[in-house]
């Protein structure tokens, strides 16, 4: 595909369950970002991957959140023991390199019951 692809587009789960969100970046993009957008708010940075460098995890809100990326391909964001405050749209973006324009996916809308 030509753009950033995220799956699932919607996820509803019960409080306490683990969830895994997936992001397929644009081919050739070495930088990948995860953001969270709560209802009525702006996007919050979560984590950044650049090539084989150590990721910038400074935005992860708690140790229940983690993310992985294999090389310059797919990334997964995992939220363990979900809480209601985790309900949000999770957006992934990729770019050719650090500081170049970011291209966003459609997001995953996560609802915790």
């Amino acid at each position, binding site marked *: 595909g030509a753009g950033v692809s995220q799956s699932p587009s919607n996820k509803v789960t019960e409080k306490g369950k683990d969830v895994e969100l997936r992001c397929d970046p644009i081919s050739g993009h070495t930088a990948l*970002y995860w*953001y969270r957008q709560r209802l009525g708010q702006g996007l919050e940075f979560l984590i950044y991957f650049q090539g084989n460098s150590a990721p*910038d995890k400074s935005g992860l809100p708690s140790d229940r959140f983690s993310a992985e990326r294999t090389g310059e391909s797919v990334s997964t964001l995992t939220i363990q023991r979900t809480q209601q405050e985790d309900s949000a749209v999770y957006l992934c973006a990729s770019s050719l390199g650090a*500081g170049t324009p970011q*291209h966003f996916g459609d997001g995953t809308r996560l609802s915790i019951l």
Partner: protein
Amino acid sequence: AQRVTQPEKLLSVFKGAPVELKCNYSYSGSPELFWYVQYSRQRLQLLLRHISRESIKGFTADLNKGETSFHLKKPFAQEEDSAMYYCALKTSNTGKLIFGQGTTLQVKP
């Protein structure tokens, strides 16, 4: 603290009227500012960046370091400009962005 403030949640204007979406930032270093736009049922996309000093779809934005502002302007609004607009600040070499809360622009016929 690094922060982006968009004071208006909703801005409603008539077609043909001038538009100014406000953005103020807080950052002690050398900022790089962006405007992103999200049209209905579409994904978030880059509108313009201050280092390019370009006009996209008739929109311009000038970085004013003295006032720490990066307001988005268009002299004559069109109905197709109706969308959600986000101002964003890049503060490090990683490229991670700090976003404002967004302003919904509604252009009425």
